[in-house]
């Protein structure tokens, strides 16, 4: 059963066709990678899932509900979390606060106001957030300001922020970009653990090592169209994929 269904999605920017009749099915509980050369429309596609962009035509449904025409926070409340290419975190807040905020959002909904309750009295959520931080190896820095973290740490923090919400679908936009080999491997391990919990993941990634260690299915996007969709073993040898990447290299 597919949890995310994308049907005939088109998106134009001025004269440029960014997405051209994209179709995509993501099976529940799988890791689905989207790869493709630069400018193929990967991020545009992801933006159409989270309400940042509205496709010109086509449909995007998640768990039977359309994701079009609703706001990003509503999409998240349906169970879709996203990790950005450049980490989006609350730089002026501490790490533990960064993780507690999504936990609150999950528990209390999009808007909730009980100013008489204190953060200090939320032991349960605090514990949950600390666990999540130790999962990503940041528990030692829980009281530091997030803005002072290294880029790699920020990315792991963002991942923790998404995971604490226990999402049904996790969208990752190049989760290992700019990481060292060691960090990348740690992240792969982490994502494998997440996958084992049954979280569905859509990953955009350039690093083929990451893609082939994780993905159960791969869609190749080129010039706004899905040219191939298959299991990793088949993708590796597909001439169309190599074509697209070589063509892409010239761009």
């Amino acid at each position: 059963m597919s949890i995310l269904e994308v049907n005939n999605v088109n998106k134009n920017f001025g004269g440029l066709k960014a997405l051209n009749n994209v179709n995509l099915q993501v099976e529940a509980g799988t890791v689905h990678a989207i790869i493709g050369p630069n400018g193929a429309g990967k991020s545009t596609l992801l933006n159409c899932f989270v309400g940042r962009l509205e496709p010109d035509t086509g449909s995007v449904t998640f768990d039977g509900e359309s994701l079009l025409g609703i706001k990003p926070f509503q999409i998240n409340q349906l169970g879709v979390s996203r990790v950005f290419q450049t980490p989006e975190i609350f730089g002026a807040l501490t790490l533990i606060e960064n993780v507690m905020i999504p936990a609150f959002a999950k528990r209390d909904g999009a808007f909730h106001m009980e100013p008489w309750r204190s953060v200090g009295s939320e032991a349960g959520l605090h514990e949950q957030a600390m666990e999540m931080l130790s999962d990503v190896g940041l528990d030692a820095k829980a009281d530091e300001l997030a803005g002072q973290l290294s880029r790699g740490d920020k990315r792991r923090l963002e991942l923790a922020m998404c995971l604490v919400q226990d999402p049904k679908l996790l969208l990752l936009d190049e989760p290992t970009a700019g990481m060292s080999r060691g960090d990348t491997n740690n992240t792969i391990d982490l994502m494998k653990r997440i996958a084992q919990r049954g979280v569905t993941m859509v990953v955009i990634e350039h690093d083929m090592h990451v893609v082939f260690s994780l993905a159960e299915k791969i869609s190749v996007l080129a010039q706004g169209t899905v040219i191939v969709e298959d299991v990793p073993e088949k993708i590796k040898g597909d001439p169309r994929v190599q074509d697209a990447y070589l063509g892409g290299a010239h761009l």
Partner: protein
Amino acid sequence: MLGLNRKDSGLFLLVICLTALAPFLLNPFPEGSELAQFNAGYPDLMQRFMIFGIFAIGFNILFGLTGYLSFGHAAFLGVGSYAGVWMMKLLTVNVVPAIIMSVIVAGLFSLVVGFISLRRSGIYFSILTLAFAQMSFALAYSVLTPITNGETGLQLSLNDPRILGISQTVDGSIPAANFFGIEMRDSLELAMGGWLFTFNAGYYLAAIVMLISFYIAIRIFRSPFGMMLRAVKSNQQRMSYTGLNTRPYALTAFVISGMYAGLAGGLMVAMDPLAGAERMYWTASGEVVLMTILGGAGTLLGPIIGASAIKYFENIFSKINDTVLHGWFSFMPDGLQDFVVAIIHPFIGKGWHLTLGLMFMLVVIFLPGGLMEGINRLRIWFGKRINGRQQAPDHAPATSS
């Protein structure tokens, strides 16, 4: 205490003590001495410390937490004042209904202004709030004169149709604003040696309201809701992708701070039943911004300190004239005395604006976190000196208190 953690309880207790003892603390110099000029322990100014403290605390909930810089908050204070005076004209000179009405009316007005202005962010938001406030001022000053009494300001008169109360007292005066019989202008005076301390009923009412406001502000700061407001300031994008609707958070903060402004306006007319249009002018909105930043935006205590500092300057420095100056330096030979007075004169008395401007610049340049940063630095510095060799200096960042 009261659901606060130890540090916040300590802070709250400190503020309670300071406000309770203010009549002593603010009058350190004996009456009649040269330095008595610097005493601030008289009812009007002490009330102002409290009232503008409330205004700045509320503004800080919006600006300090969410980062939305409103340039129109004086409008809510003004609207609250008008509502308060009308209550006193029409209903009763008991200040409680007037204050409640001020908060309600200011809250409703801020809901409307906030709903529209929060459609934009950054300086566009600031300009929208500025535009609303300036329109309120211009209309209150002119076209709305039947409601606001324009330039003169709305005040009580001898023939107000007061429903629960009397239009005038038996001896033909306007009844005084009171809190269930305690008149706001009543004071007890205590003379000790050369010192004179004034305990004013209005001040203590304002102080209690300020303490309640301060307590609520602490609770908001420490609540998940307060955390969300700081998240609004830090990264709205992340917030919405985290499943949080930023607009109602910002709007709630806006309305809360608008209600604080209304409360301040209501207290102002409770202490002194007159509402003038100038208190809605953009410089008045600018003043609360200055208070908050001067004290330290985003800190709990900062706004109160900033408000008190500015009001102290406005009321004490502006009253030092050159006769007073000559008095101070009368021990000097004539020529030197004139010279020293000539040097100092531009900065005090009618030049107090100049000192104020210089002070803003110095604080912003050297203490970006406002006066609170200065206080924290001093604390750390003293801490080091005291702890000295016994233990390693505490390098924990000076968290805002």
